[in-house]
């Protein structure tokens, strides 16, 4: 989902630059654990310059990797940035501490809408601060489609047989079918899941390929007409090929949010809150937005966008287009096992 390997090494090189400030104050330090390539390195330098608090910065490739490393307990992390269902899991396991976000100076920059979305995995918004978010939708080549694309239907009605790229990842494939059938993507009803399976099996001959990272590139290169992709990928795709467009189908889709958490063993909760507040500040949020180009929940940044950017569903989806969408919370073990089995069947079909 968020594979940003390349800049990881570059970022590590930048770290020592900001590390020798604030000699007179007692040395304060935060250990921050973020997803790869998920913050402008300049923001970290800036924070240390302004506050004298040193940041030890670490990155993980996936939320699962982060969880494993955090749980291993070798390093005492103070702050974590991870994805929605992992936030829910960490809260349930008592690994994080509550934070009063209303005390934040810049907390108001995060729009109410995103706090509301976040209640799906953090009821009452007690623990997590939304950082970036996005959707799953259809990236398509406007020169190759006939008629408007606004529904998952185009993936299943056979009209674009052989021109479709689906995601080669279990959940990202099933959510499409579940939403198209009008079910919740968090369903645990076996009949609904099997209906989605039948739909996907019937669709397979029409699918050109199941890909992950290359899904976007295949549409950019003109090898496929449309692909199911994450909104961040779609935005980048349009940078390469202006004929592409991204749509959130009207049946709804998966909505994902990455959030910040303060760990239960955080050595300096005040410094941690100071850092989170800093991330909400307009100039810092702007910097990170320009570095990452995922949808930001920061309204101060959103207000500064051009009209064209605001109209871009890959960058700033409006509330209406997200109306039927849900956050994927990862179902119980039995459902996951069923999905794993069906996914193998689908791939082997």
């Amino acid at each position, binding site marked *: 989902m968020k594979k940003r390997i390349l800049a990881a090494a570059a970022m590590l090189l930048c770290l020592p630059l900001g590390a020798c400030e604030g000699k007179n104050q007692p040395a304060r330090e935060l250990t921050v654990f973020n997803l790869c390539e998920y913050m402008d390195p300049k923001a970290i330098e800036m924070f240390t310059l302004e506050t004298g608090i040193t940041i030890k910065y670490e990155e993980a490739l996936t939320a699962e990797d982060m969880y494993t490393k955090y749980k291993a307990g070798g390093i005492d992390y103070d702050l974590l940035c991870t994805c929605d269902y992992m936030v829910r899991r960490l809260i349930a396991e008592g690994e994080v501490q509550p934070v009063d976000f209303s005390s934040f100076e810049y907390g108001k920059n995060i729009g109410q809408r995103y706090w509301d979305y976040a209640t799906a995995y953090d009821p009452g918004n007690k623990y997590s601060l939304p950082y970036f978010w996005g959707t799953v939708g259809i990236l398509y080549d406007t020169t190759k489609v006939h008629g408007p694309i606004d529904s998952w239907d185009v993936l299943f009605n056979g009209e674009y047989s052989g021109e479709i790229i689906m995601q*080669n990842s279990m959940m990202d494939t099933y959510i499409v079918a579940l939403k198209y059938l009008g079910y919740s993507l968090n369903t645990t009803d076996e009949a609904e899941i099997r209906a989605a399976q039948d739909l996907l099996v019937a669709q397979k001959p029409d*699918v050109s390929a*199941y890909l992950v990272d*290359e899904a976007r590139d295949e549409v950019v290169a003109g090898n496929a007409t449309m692909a199911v992709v994450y909104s961040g990928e779609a935005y980048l795709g349009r940078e390469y090929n202006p004929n592409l467009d991204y749509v959130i189908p009207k049946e709804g889709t998966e909505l994902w949010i990455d959030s910040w958490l303060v760990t239960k063993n955080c050595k300096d909760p005040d410094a941690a809150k100071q850092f989170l507040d800093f991330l909400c500040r307009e100039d810092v949020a702007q910097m990170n937005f320009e570095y990452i180009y995922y949808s930001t929940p920061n309204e101060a940044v959103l207000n500064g966008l051009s009209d064209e950017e605001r109209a871009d569903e890959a960058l700033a989806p409006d509330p209406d287009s997200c109306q039927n969408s849900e956050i994927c919370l990862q179902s119980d073990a039995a459902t996951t096992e069923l999905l794993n*089995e069906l*996914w193998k*069947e689908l*791939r*082997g079909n």
Partner: protein
Amino acid sequence: MDRNRKQRQLLALPYVLWSIAFTVIPLLVIIRYAVTDKDGHFSVSNLLAFSTPVNAKAFLISLEIALICTVICVLLAYPLVMVVRRLRISRMTFMLFFLIMPMWMNFILRMLALQMILSNNGILNMIVTGLGFQPLALANTKAAVIIGVVYDYLPFMMLPIFNTISDIGEDVLEAASDLGASPLSVFFRVILPMSLPGLKSGITIVFVPSMTSFVIADILGGGKIQLIGNIIEQEFTRSTNWNLGSGLSAALMLFMLVGMSFTIKDDILPSHPVKDEEGEKKEAPGGEGISRRAVL
């Protein structure tokens, strides 16, 4: 002499430690996982899972692809070797270097490059349509996977065969011709039988890995071709069912052990051991030892 032998055996110690740490122990861990269920109780259900329809189908496709690829590699390797062996030494070195050079590049990178070449709007189709033919629909098919496997493993087939054939003296071939054998029968009655050890190790080195590969199928098959390797990978990474993954791996290993027993036997015990003065067994020409040396 006995002490000498002991000392020499001592030299193998680093390798013995290495294989205990990275072959024997992991293998035991795999087997332990394979014969237990998630709660740690003894169970053979993970081994038997090999025969469920989904797994059996993936296994048969893997077998089919591995067999086709091995046959294609053999058919490509022999003519190539016959040409290369006639070259002067300097050219021969260059040709071998040329064959091995692609292996210096990262494997994933080569597969991604091949993916672009084979894609619908790729270089291959540009050439094909440029010549006035219909574009080929190779991308994301079994054929693309086969091309990828053959491309990747051809050197491993070619080098052992080359090693055995280059050991055949020119006088032997001349003698065959002088006695009236046509070029074809020289090949089939002299060269082919004499190169069998190389052919066998080539088959082992090509067939086994292509049977278990999953990356090529993911990249060139567009996720539409599911091999047994893909299933095992999924059990370990996404489904985190290590017991089932290990069970399938163990069953697959067992199958290959049985299937490959004829070549493995030949590699360990040369069919015609030659005794030298010290009474040591000499490796039959072109055993795996030689081919490995050439590859490295």
